[in-house]
């Protein structure tokens, strides 16, 4: 059996009413309603946070680290996601956010957008290799990478082996802080200010490498109130803004494509849209496409479920903040490309959670039984049985986790037949 995996996305059982909102929206069919409450199938969950967004009862939550957790380290560095800058309306300068974070108790702030600068350069280098399967797929959104593991295993070797900006930022931040302050790297804690649960999971359970350089993840929502009040009296200091406009632009969908700037790239946001395009890539319909950037959230990271601000507002804030320099290019200081471990050292393996059985013959037998059951079902995809569609319900019956009478329509039919039988029986006994 698969080991119990860490997931940031969780269910608070007592708040759940057992409705079908999350059930219908989960892109990997990882939710079932059983006994009047939703359950998440751990092996299938990709931590995209769609269920958090759609739950009317706020029963779906993301587990993140509290701000107080930074006290576990002697030295604390904040790693703000570029999308954090989009949360504040009348920001004069990004440096206000950076200074605001320092006032909150961090010893240092290192922009993840700087990590994005380095990552963009690394991807540009990778794209020079004609032997990589095209299109090369961005590794930035962990929910998309996990989606590919679950639903598109044949596209795994398209994913670029460059680490995420937050990882690169953490590595650089730790080393630079340790050197300038003369302290040990082990004494430094790097905390990502996260817009999404997928990044939290990526820190605890990295993809493509064994251990994350990031020590914790604090949600934007957790610090929003405190940071807003700090920003009001935070000084502007342009020398603190070291990330390029291109790096900051990663906050919104299309920013990575723009920074990597291959001739033919495509950025897609929203997980359903990503699924459609990945299907097309799989069918080799998008010939000539060099680079694909997929973001699970609408608008990109500014649309993350742990943000405070509406994603469209945040997106336009980012657009303004990332247009400081009309001739912006990546800011990658000398030596960055060789000094740090920018590349993954482990292959990304398929997630076989959708597989019916490890044995092919047995899987085929199950498939036959699924087809037979599916044909008996009404095809309403109503979700009343607790499975998202009639097809998944048929799968659940065959896998032994549901019974046919969980379908209220089949149950009604069964009752009708039984009622008729009773009437017939009553008639015969009278005669």
């Amino acid at each position, binding site marked *: 059996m698969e080991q119990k995996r860490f997931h940031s996305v969780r269910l608070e059982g007592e708040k759940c009413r057992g409705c079908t909102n999350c059930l219908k929206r989960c892109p990997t069919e990882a939710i079932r309603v059983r006994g009047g409450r939703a359950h998440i199938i751990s092996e299938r969950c990709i931590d995209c946070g769609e269920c958090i967004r759609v739950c009317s009862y706020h029963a779906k939550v993301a587990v993140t680290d509290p701000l107080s957790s930074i006290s576990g380290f002697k030295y604390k560095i904040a790693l703000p996601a570029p999308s954090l800058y989009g949360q504040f309306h009348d920001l004069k300068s990004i440096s206000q956010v950076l200074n605001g974070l320092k006032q909150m108790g961090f010893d240092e702030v290192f922009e993840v957008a700087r990590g994005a600068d380095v990552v963009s350069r690394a991807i540009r280098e990778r794209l020079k290799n004609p032997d990589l399967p095209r299109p090369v797929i961005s590794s930035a959104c962990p929910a998309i990478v996990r989606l590919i593991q679950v639903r598109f*295993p044949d596209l795994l070797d398209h994913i670029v082996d460059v680490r995420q900006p937050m990882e690169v930022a953490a590595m650089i931040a730790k080393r630079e802080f340790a050197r300038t302050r003369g302290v040990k790297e082990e004494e430094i804690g790097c905390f990502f200010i996260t817009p999404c649960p997928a990044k939290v999971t990526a820190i605890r359970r990295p993809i493509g490498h064994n251990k994350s350089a990031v020590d914790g993840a604090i949600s934007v929502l957790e610090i929003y109130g405190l940071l807003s009040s700090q920003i009001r009296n935070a000084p502007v200091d342009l020398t603190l803004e070291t990330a390029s406009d291109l790096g900051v632009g990663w906050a919104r969908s299309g920013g990575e494509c723009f920074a990597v700037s291959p001739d033919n790239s495509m950025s897609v946001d929203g997980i359903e849209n990503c699924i459609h395009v990945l299907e097309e890539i799989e*069918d080799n319909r998008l010939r000539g496409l060099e680079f694909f950037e997929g973001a699970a959230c609408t608008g990109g990271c500014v649309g993350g479920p742990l943000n405070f601000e509406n994603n469209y507002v945040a997106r336009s804030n980012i657009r303004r903040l990332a247009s400081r320099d009309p001739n912006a290019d990546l800011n990658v200081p000398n030596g960055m490309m060789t000094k740090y471990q920018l590349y993954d050292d482990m292959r990304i393996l398929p997630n076989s959670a959708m597989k019916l059985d490890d044995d092919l013959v047995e899987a085929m037998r199950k498939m036959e039984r699924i087809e037979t059951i599916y044909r008996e079902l009404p095809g309403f995809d109503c979700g009343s049985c607790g499975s998202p569609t009639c097809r998944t319900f048929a799968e659940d019956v065959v896998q032994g986790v549901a019974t046919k009478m969980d379908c209220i329509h089949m149950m009604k039919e069964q009752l009708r037949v039984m009622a008729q039988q009773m009437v017939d029986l009553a008639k015969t006994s009278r005669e």
Partner: protein
Amino acid sequence: MAVLLEKSFPVEAGAYTTAGEASTTIKRTLKQLGISADVLRHVSVACYEVELNLVIHSLGGTLTLLVDPEKVTLISKDVGPGIPDIDKAMTEGFSTASAEARTLGFGAGMGLPNMKRNATEFDIQSEVGVGTTITMSFALA
């Protein structure tokens, strides 16, 4: 080895709105069976090409998926019009796609060559006025 799984999908001529649906279902089925990524890659490309051929060129037909422990087989069988010169049809860059299909980005003349390239075994039989049958198999081991 006996065929253990068979699924058929009717494909309508000119139905661009639903084109690709059979391929999507076939891919989903193969993924649930746990077919390896390498085989999946080849089946995906060939399957979409053959489905699109039914939509663009045929008068309608059926796409059938067969799976046995040794291989995946795709059979496309249509009711016409049939291909007058198969050698020519197999040539890269040759296409008889309509102006309508070309405006939708099809008609590069790579369909049949792509199918042949991706399948382990490829067979095409055609008779003008009767129809075309394409059989492709993909070895699992």
